[in-house]
């Protein structure tokens, strides 16, 4: 048995197609499954640098995605890392009040996210993290 696995074809395509672009899924390819996901939250004031440290328990340095949300603008999530609206910088999405500089570091032990708040008052920052079963 040298050729076995699971395939799902896109609507209208024969599952026996030889072109992988016509497949929705094929076990022949790495699918970047999520190993662990969750969130973390803390409150700070303008100028504060907040650090989130997540000991992920995986035995390798995983590929990571992190999104950040604020109580000041809770309706959407920003992808990290980012250089936000530093004083005088142009805010490309038009919310000059919510300003963050963020940095992500990850190794085989910890995911560390640092966030510098620039909002004019107290703000709660929540991040969502996704760590994948794929080593960097």
């Amino acid at each position, binding site marked *: 048995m040298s050729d076995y696995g699971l395939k799902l074809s896109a609507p209208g395509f024969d599952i026996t197609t030889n072109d992988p672009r016509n497949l929705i899924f094929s076990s022949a390819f790495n699918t970047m499954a999520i*190993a*662990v*996901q*969750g*969130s*973390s*939250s*803390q409150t*700070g004031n303008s100028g*504060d*640098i*907040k*650090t*989130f*440290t*997540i*000991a*992920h*328990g*995986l035995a390798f340095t995983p590929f990571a995605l992190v999104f950040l949300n604020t109580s000041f603008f809770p309706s959407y999530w920003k992808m990290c890392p980012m250089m936000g609206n530093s004083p005088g910088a142009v805010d490309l999405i038009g919310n000059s009040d919510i300003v963050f500089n963020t940095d992500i570091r990850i190794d085989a032990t910890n995911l560390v996210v640092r966030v510098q708040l620039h909002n004019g008052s107290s703000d*709660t920052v*929540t991040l*969502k993290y996704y760590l994948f079963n794929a080593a960097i």
Partner: protein
Amino acid sequence: MIIFFNKKTGDIIGTVEGRIHDDTHQMMGMSISDSEEGDAGKIVCQWKVSALKTKEGNVITPEEANSLRENGQEVYIEHEPDHPQKDIFFLLDKEPIKVYEYKVDVATGKLVNK
């Protein structure tokens, strides 16, 4: 879901989402600014099988389920949070981010509304 909270204040500082948490998840830790990992308490809520049902929705015993499977029939498995506050964990399963509307009563270890 695994919920990490500040042992002194009861504030929730983070989560690991999911219904089943293996050894890797159990080893996870979390800290935020002004706290150390050891400051965090942990609530672990695993999900368990709550009922076995036939295709028609009738509740059956494990023995009946095995018998149906041996005859090639489908058995439906329902799950629920294995936790005294399972109603809250049902809600958090749908909207995990709502966890920050709660805090932990450090005296009882229970989730309470902020």
